[in-house]
């Protein structure tokens, strides 16, 4: 595994980007996600309106992988119906677990496909999936 395949341009940009890292004024759901062994901690804030993820943001600390993954996830699910967001979350987790490897099947994940290589790094899988597990939990 080369570092170029892990810290890709899109992951670096997303992990350093602040656009989704903010507090929402009136979130309808706030849920914390943690990877206790690494020290990744995020607080996911969502505004659910008419069955749609109308707005989303996060705060917290973590590694580049977890931060980028959270930010990419927010970009992806914002404006989508809850069911679609849940399906995307499931698809992302299956991608990291290498249960779905077909490129066309992964297309709905858009830029989040950039994290696919993390599936080759057992030590970092949890960093990538934690925000998505948190999202699924929040939307249940």
């Amino acid at each position: 595994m080369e570092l170029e395949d892990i810290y890709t341009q899109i992951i670096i940009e997303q992990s350093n980007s602040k656009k989704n890292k903010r507090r929402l004024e009136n979130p309808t759901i706030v849920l914390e996600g943690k990877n206790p062994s690494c020290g990744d901690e995020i607080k996911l804030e969502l505004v659910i309106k008419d069955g749609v993820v109308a707005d989303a943001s996060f705060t917290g600390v973590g590694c580049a992988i977890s931060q980028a993954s959270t930010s990419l996830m927010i970009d992806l699910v914002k404006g989508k119906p809850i069911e679609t967001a849940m399906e995307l979350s499931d698809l992302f987790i299956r991608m990291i677990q290498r249960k779905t490897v077909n490129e066309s099947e992964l297309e709905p994940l858009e830029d989040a496909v950039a994290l696919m290589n993390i599936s080759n790094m057992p030590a970092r899988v949890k960093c990538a999936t934690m925000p998505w597990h948190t999202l699924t939990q929040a939307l249940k």
Partner: protein
Amino acid sequence: MINKIINSSSLISDVSDLKENEYIKDFPLLNNMAEGKKRLVYLDNAATTQKPLSVINAVKEYYGHYNANPHRGAYGLSSKATQIYEDARECARRFINAKSSEEIIFTKGATEGFNMIASSFGEDFICSGDEILLSIAEHHSNLIPWQLVAKKKGAILKYMYTEPSGEITTKEITDKINERTKLVAITHVSNVLGLINPVEEIIRRAHKVGAVVVMDAAQSIPHIQVDVQKLNVDFMVFSGHKMLAPMGIGVLYGKKKLLDNMRPLLYGGGMVESVTEQDTVYAEAPYKFEGGTQNVEAAYGLMKAMEYIDDIGYDKIAAIEDKLTAYAIEKLEEIPYITIYVDRRQGKGTGVISFGIEGVHPHDVSTVLDAYGVAIRSGHHCAQPLMNHLGIHACCRISLYFYNSMKDIDCFIDAIKNVRRWLGLGA
């Protein structure tokens, strides 16, 4: 018998030149990796050390020549296995200078040792309102068992806090130890801070108020002499695998008069005097604490590990590690965006340096370093209360051993200088 491994201690006659380290020759894994694409720079010795050939061969030798269930067979091979196991116990006794080999209990590691003390001593002798005193730098293994005892018995858990320099001051010790203190659980050396704690002073004060002291030697005994009689410590625990021995073996030392009054933790074979339909008479210590078939080959490996350390000598180990540590700190301090979390110049240490890189999560640091062939630890190091106390979520840690070299440190420093670039944070 296997050939005696020729110890290479004579090869480093002068620690002033540690560019290369000849001890590495005794460690197959470090050499195996050296033949690959990248030389492994192993700087995670506080997690586990690599094993010398003498230890690896001991395990092989045991199964090739001596394997039988000790204490259970009335035949030659079983007697031989028993002999090896008891020789290892005597070796451990001598190594820590216990009064009697009856005070040496083999465990699967430090964690089992702490749990055994907490269950078999703590739960029976700690009462409601008693105080259990820990340091904030305890590893979870010497912390969680005491939380459980405190909850179960209605005892009060208190902490001695470290200074920003990493030290535990005399004031903190005298402030926290009082007539209600029943037990003090203290690490000799923290796995994050790497400083040698003033355990003599803590033990002395604890004994003045009649408290029992449990000492975690897992991070000290690989690096410094631990003499249980000189320290006058009541219980002491360590793991073999952090001091060259195989995994799955450790030692619990306890003063005989304490062990005699404690009940076993595991009940079953090998720990009884006699069993009737309704009752059991337990064996004496140490056997009553060693229920079930023990890890004999690892005990044999531990003996070889202790012999290896004896051959080098703690003085030389300390001389090498002090030099390497000072060099690593000097190099790290030259890098502006690095924070070292403890002032290592305050006291004598053991080759542990915990640090952070501005703007980069420790997990990313270890991933980048791994790509450069450098193995370091990142995370909370099983010391979350200490992380909270230090005001951080996680940190990076290098931990050196006598087989590391200046070259290892140079590789580490070169790799460190690349981390921020990989994370898109410039140079």
